[in-house]
């Protein structure tokens, strides 16, 4: 971290390429309060706004990693716009009982679209199913986490999770994959636009 904390957006962007986490934390801390106020002013109740803000941060980070990323407004405005889009998408999917001001739909002249490929796409359904598996009592999520993410071998997984053999873990993993695919296909059929 430099001696002086970056103040302008350009300084933060420059820092991002040197110290990703440092820049990210500054963005989080500087933009948090304003974004939360912005969201609360339009949706007083409903939605996990902290979660929405974090999602927006992840979208912003994802974009900042791209070399073609050009900031055409302040980081705060950009984040607020992403928050707005996420809220609107969530509101369309699960409408909450509130009057939505038209200005919320129309304000912020800056064009920041989270297009279908980025947010409501096929991958988001995969992520939803992973989240679902995490909450289930079976050990599918643990097996997937250990095997795919931590790249641990089947025998070690068997030892760790108390299976009698690696073959049993393989079978369990296969069954879990079959279930996951069924659930993913069911959701894709419900929402053909998200294919």
């Amino acid at each position, binding site marked *: 971290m430099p001696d002086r904390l970056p103040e302008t957006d350009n300084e933060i962007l420059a820092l991002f390429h040197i110290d990703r986490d440092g820049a990210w*934390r500054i963005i*989080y801390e500087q933009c948090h309060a304003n974004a939360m106020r912005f969201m609360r002013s339009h949706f007083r109740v409903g939605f996990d706004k902290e979660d929405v803000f974090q999602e927006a941060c992840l979208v912003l980070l994802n974009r900042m990693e791209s070399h073609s990323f050009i900031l055409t407004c302040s980081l705060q405005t950009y984040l607020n716009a992403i928050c707005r889009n996420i809220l609107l998408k969530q509101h369309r999917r699960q409408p909450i009982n509130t009057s939505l001001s038209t200005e919320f739909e129309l304000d912020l002249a800056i064009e920041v679209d989270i297009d279908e490929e980025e947010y409501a796409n096929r*991958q988001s359904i995969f*992520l939803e199913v992973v989240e679902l598996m995490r909450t289930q009592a079976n050990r599918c999520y643990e097996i997937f986490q250990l095997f*795919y993410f931590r790249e641990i071998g089947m025998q070690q997984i068997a030892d760790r999770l108390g299976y009698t053999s690696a*073959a049993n873990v393989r079978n369990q993993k296969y069954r879990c*994959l079959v279930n996951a695919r069924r659930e993913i296909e069911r959701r894709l059929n419900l929402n053909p636009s998200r294919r």
Partner: protein
Amino acid sequence: MIYQEMFGYLTIEDPRERDKVWQSLSPQVQDYLNVFFNMLGDIDNPPYYENSKFYRLITKEEFESLIKVFYSTQQSQADVIDAAFEEEFKQAIIAYEKKSAMKAKMNQWRAEMAKEEESTPVQMQEPIFYNKKRMVDQDDIAENPRNYIPQNSGSSSGKFTGGCLIAIVAGILILLALYWGSK
């Protein structure tokens, strides 16, 4: 030995895993497995231990156990998971894990921010300013009833009527004085 290898192979539910394991089996076991599959696929002749090539090679209980495991795994083999799907799912798991780690980080920052806000000392001037403001506000509230005269209240209209009477009487007196003066 043959029974164990055949049994181990038949318990594998994932068809792609089976293909991998098949390559590692000895040709002899592969032959026996092929015979076993042909035997089960022959609908006209149900498998009988005594008539089969497995007679005396394995026990009858082992033979039945192979048939049982074959049918139990066949059910799940109806759903074939292709490599493309598995790769996509693997990427989703990795993305989910990374996202969870990032969110955990942000939650930690949030907690630290909340702690900092709590521990920030309150400036000495602030309550004074607040009190002064409040005093001013209270004064305004206190003064308002005194200064504020409702336009259409009963008391104001009574005063107005009294004032009119006095003015009329005074006017009459002035007129009388002028009249008597002119005489």
